[in-house]
């Protein structure tokens, strides 16, 4: 599904990603763990096409296509979804209007018919139940005045509506209490299937108790320094990132 080769990326003058190789097959869930500043969010941003980052070397192929050639909106239409670490507040645009516009853009790209207001309402109500989100959040401006937990639920709600095939979760667990974490993870797990893949980025092992990965990678200073099964996450939790950084030092 996704093939990353020798990916180098910069933010301003600084090189953040220094040669990432990563291959994620259909239906697989991969986790990326790593200390602050290791390049986790940069990787997420590069995948979604965040303009602040520049790819200087390497390639990303998604379903055989050159992902780096695509504008952010084209990536979304092709089935890529980034759950933001810091979802943006947009005053004056209702959540309802936004989600409907987004869903219809994606349905059109998939060759499906647009949904009308009534069908959209039915659909969104059903998905909101999964993430236990209060109805009134649909009539409010996007993320404006939402609590941290509500913002993250809103991200997962969008994911449930858009049904992407490749999902990147950028520290979706940050700022969530254990109950909210469970709800959010439940939403994510709803989408697991043989045709969908995920990259779950997290600082802590905790999230991976709920979204159980097939493969865990450890990112350090812009490179993947270790990969393993889900037990690697537990090992990291016990020994701390110092263990990896120490091991990878020349």
């Amino acid at each position, binding site marked *: 599904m996704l093939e990353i080769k020798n990916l180098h990326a910069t933010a301003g003058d600084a090189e953040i990603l220094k040669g990432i190789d990563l291959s994620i097959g259909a239906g697989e869930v991969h986790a990326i763990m790593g200390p602050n500043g290791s390049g986790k969010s940069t990787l997420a941003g590069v995948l*979604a*096409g*965040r*303009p*602040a980052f520049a790819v200087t070397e390497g390639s990303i192929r998604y379903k055989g296509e050159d992902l780096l050639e695509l*504008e*952010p*909106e084209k*990536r*979304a*239409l092709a089935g890529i*979804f*980034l759950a*933001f670490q810091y*979802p*943006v507040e*947009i*005053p*004056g*645009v209702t959540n309802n*209007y*936004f989600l409907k*516009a*987004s869903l219809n*853009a*994606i349905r059109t*790209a998939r060759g499906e018919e647009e949904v009308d207001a009534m069908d959209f309402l039915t659909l969104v109500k059903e998905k909101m139940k999964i993430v236990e989100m209060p109805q009134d959040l649909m009539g409010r*401006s996007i993320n404006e005045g939402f609590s941290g937990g509500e913002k993250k639920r809103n991200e997962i709600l*969008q994911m449930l509506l*858009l049904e992407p095939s490749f999902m990147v979760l950028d520290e979706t667990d940050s700022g969530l209490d254990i109950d909210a974490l469970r709800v959010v993870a439940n939403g994510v797990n709803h989408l697991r299937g043989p045709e969908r893949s995920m990259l779950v980025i997290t600082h802590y092992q905790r999230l991976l108790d709920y979204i159980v990965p097939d493969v865990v990678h450890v990112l350090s200073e812009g490179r993947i320094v270790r990969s393993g099964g889900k037990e690697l996450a537990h090992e990291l939790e016990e020994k701390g990132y110092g263990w990896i950084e120490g091991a990878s030092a020349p």
Partner: protein
Amino acid sequence: MSQVLEQGRDRFLALAARVPGGGALDALRAEGVAAFTAQGLPGTRLEEWRYTNVAPLAAIEWSDAAEHLSVARSALEAVASPVFACGLEVFVDGVHHAELDGTQRADQVQELADAATAPAALATLADAKRHPFVALNGALTRDGAAVSLDGDDQRAVHLVFAEASADVASHPRVVIETAPGARGTVIVDHVSLGLARHYSNAVIEVRVAENASLDVVVLQRTNDASFHTGHLAARVERNGRLRTHTLSLGGCFVRNDLEVTLAGEGAECVMNGLYLGTGDQLIDNHTWVDHAVPHGRSEELYKGVLGGRSKGVFRGRVMVRPDAQKTDARQSNPNLLLADGAEIDTKPQLEIYADDVKCSHGSTIGRLDPESLFYLRSRGIGVEAARLLLTRGFAAEVLNALPEPALAETLGAVFADRLERSGGVA
């Protein structure tokens, strides 16, 4: 005064000599001619006109309405939508067209040209001696409307000033009076029938009586070639409440003056404004709130969106006089610049002579937030649609405050359409 301004003044005065006399407006016209002769057209050396050069307006040879045009009702409804049929009064090229009116409410709206006597408030609030365009309006006005609200009728009075003929200047006058405790909404709607260049110079005088509550919506959505100057002067008595909504969504040259005096204790005014500049447009808003007595409250929010090579001007004066203790005055002027060639000159100006008051003001100038843009795009929304959505979102606060939900919807569409057509979001 420069030659072009002098020439403009003389041409306007020549037109004034041709306005047919007789009726309730004679005194207003005589006063207007005298005041306009004395002042002429304002030059940029005057502080009030520093950023707005009226030379382009003065250079055009304007005429008065030539004939009574035949206008189809459907043509009017297409440009003045949504039409509030009850209390609808239509003026074309400054002259009343009774055949286009809606079902009038008795005694609530009266054409000034037909009035036996001038309404009591006429020329008591808008000062012709201080404002050249108020003087010009007085000198050249042919008609307008007197609105008196005495009950609790929630239906809006809709005054449409449509301009149709090329190079016609019209000078409509509106007087709105409320009885104590009355409630109502008056919409003053400036529109174009067609694409011909025209000029409208409106004066609106508003008296809000004790405990009355009034919304005045001033819409300016004329064609891209049109000129507009508008002056609204209001006085709010004890515990009265005035909300003004000034929306500039058209034209090439627009200047709005708004003057509100909070004359009675506990009086309140909310001033909302929205302006959208496209192409080479100039939009200037000058506002002035006079807190004359204690316990007044004023809240002002003017939002500007400027694209292309358009230029915006905002000057918001708030005066708190020595007696006006416990005043609560807030002012905000956020601006969104959509293009490198666009410009805004914004100047909040607080003059506070009382010590126990709460006053705040702020102007901001910004661009579309790149992170918000990326967020929308990452959800499959194209870059142009995303920019449009964000810009409309910026304007929503003012649109949503309009007294009639149907207005917010229609004007939101007018706003988006104008923005899209101008390529302002591309």
